[in-house]
């Protein structure tokens, strides 16, 4: 803009349009077609109840039907402990394996396998292994550790274990990358200043890890909250592990009420958004800058 006090000053040349910006269009189309359009479509659909009525009829139905709204609680009861266990466990394991060693490679490879297998195969394996006549319960009985029937499938525990089996490697790999990103000379400096290994962890590593751990927790939570195959295969989909995604699937593929299913999906997304936003907002209490100790 030319200044009004200098009426004769030449106008600055218009910023030339950079034609290279068009290169983002394939990605943009991709995002619009695969994420934005289905989301908007579902949102609109959720406000068009199949049986007529007000626009909010589906949401009212969800929050008044005792077969529906408790699924949020059921899902949270699975997803929150799974997230805490996965992230909580990944910290000491990643910390123990922070130095590049053959062990690190071995454990990492071992843990990548469940990620690549997918939840259905894990569930299948678990049904055999943890089933009433599986190796696990036979071993427990054989060692006289527990005399009653060991029930770890077709209930809450089966689903929780499967969420840990499939979710822990993911949390571990994320945490490992955060842990190895912290300059090890910081801990050495702390040691020369009198910090014991525990204090080195508490004062140096943990505060620097917190932002990363929050992010790992967000991703783990979203993954666990959308649990579906293992809740059906390993849980009790009619009762204790009737998670929200099952409610949505039933609405869509048993009642053929796509509108209600969309409303449930929207509720699901909203709960995830709330929890993730809550977790991310705690990040401002932590230091989030670089994790090195100076120029290096």
């Amino acid at each position, binding site marked *: 803009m030319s200044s009004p006090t200098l009426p004769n000053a030449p106008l600055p040349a218009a910023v030339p349009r950079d034609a290279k910006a068009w290169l983002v269009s394939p990605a943009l189309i991709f995002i619009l077609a695969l994420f934005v359009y289905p989301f908007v479509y579902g949102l609109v659909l959720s406000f068009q109840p199949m049986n007529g009525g007000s626009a909010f009829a589906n949401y009212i139905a969800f929050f008044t039907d005792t077969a529906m709204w408790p699924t949020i609680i059921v899902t949270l009861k699975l997803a929150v402990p799974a997230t805490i266990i996965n992230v909580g466990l990944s910290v000491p394991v990643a910390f123990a394996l922070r130095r590049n060693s053959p062990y690190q490679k071995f454990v990492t490879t071992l843990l990548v396998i469940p990620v690549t297998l997918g939840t259905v195969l894990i569930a299948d394996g678990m049904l055999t292994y943890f089933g009433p006549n599986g190796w696990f319960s036979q071993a427990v009985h054989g060692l006289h550790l527990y005399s009653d029937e060991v029930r770890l499938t077709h209930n809450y525990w089966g689903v929780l274990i499967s969420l840990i089996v499939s979710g822990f490697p993911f949390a571990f790999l994320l945490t490992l990358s955060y842990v190895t990103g912290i300059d090890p*000379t910081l801990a050495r*400096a*702390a*040691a020369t*200043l009198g910090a*014991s290994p525990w204090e080195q962890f508490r004062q*140096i590593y943990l505060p620097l890890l917190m932002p990363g751990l929050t992010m790992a927790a967000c991703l783990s939570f979203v993954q666990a909250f959308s649990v579906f195959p293992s809740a059906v295969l390993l849980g009790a989909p009619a009762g204790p592990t009737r998670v929200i995604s099952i409610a949505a699937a039933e609405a869509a593929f048993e009642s053929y009420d796509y509108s209600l299913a969309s409303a449930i999906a929207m509720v699901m997304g909203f709960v995830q958004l709330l929890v993730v936003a809550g977790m991310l907002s705690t990040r401002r209490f932590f230091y989030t*800058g670089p994790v090195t*100790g*100076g120029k290096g």
Partner: protein
Amino acid sequence: MKHQFDELRLDSVSRSFMNAEGQAVAALRGLALNIQRGEFIALLGPSGCGKSTALNCIAGLQPLTGGQIWLDDQRIDVLPPEKRGFGMVFQNYALFPHMSVLDNVGFGLKMRGIAKSEAARRAYEALQMVQLIGQEKKLPGQLSGGQQQRVAIARAIVIEPSLVLMDEPLSNLDTKLRIEMRAEIRRIHSQLGRATIYVTHDQDEALSMADRIVVMREGSVQQVASPKEIYERPGYRNVAQFTLEGMQGEGVAVSSDGVRLIGMPMAGFDSKRVSVAMRPEDLERAAPGAENAFDAEVLTVEYGGHDSLIRVKAAFGNLWARVTGDVAVGEPICLRVPPSRTLVYDGEAP
């Protein structure tokens, strides 16, 4: 850990590690060294000579594979780093990025369970010593490199260590700041009156700061002497740049390819082959035929204002020289070096 000691003794300290191929590589071979209270010691040597390893072993950050370290009558190589009570300044400063300058400096005091108010008072004192008052609320990332290094020094000295270890602390700073900080570190050292071990590969740094210089090479000590002696009579042969055949007479004259040089013998001679070392700054332009003069050709020129650092090709080999005046690449040049500054060693240059 006591605040003062009379002598730190490294008793044939060895350290080897496995390389990627699974072979044992010795970083330190039987390093023996005595350090007295209040001394400023520089460990000088090229990269990979083991000087940083030696420092880490003293600090307890790397275990020894052989030998012992004694602090007067106490054996300390068996103690973990947090029990040794030495202050250490790292090459990359290693400041805690999530803590303010004051918290960084107070960290060692906090770990010692010193009350908050007392710790803050002492941290302020240390910051005053490194002239950083007014910056204590900032995070390390908001400081310049020189300021960060001062924080690192304050953090190491605030715990009143009996020994301060510095691992190339100035190598990340620009030249001007580096020279300022040398004087600063030297001042802090005299003010504290404690021993300092300073690792560097920069000869100027070692010469200007240390009471004694320990020259290291391939994991062991080559020479321990005062800076003056190290400069004038280097016992090590890193500076010996070429080999001349033969020697004659008392004053040791050597000749090769028609070049005749008179030099200072640095040791007894066993072999007919000797090596000659001359420092770039001892070389000067000369008229052809003058004593200790030789012809050379200029290969490269680095203009440095007051003088130029040139690489020349002489009949017996290539060498560096500092000369004043105009000089161009490809030009013939006649140089001489005073006989007192021509250091002659037995055997071939390594």
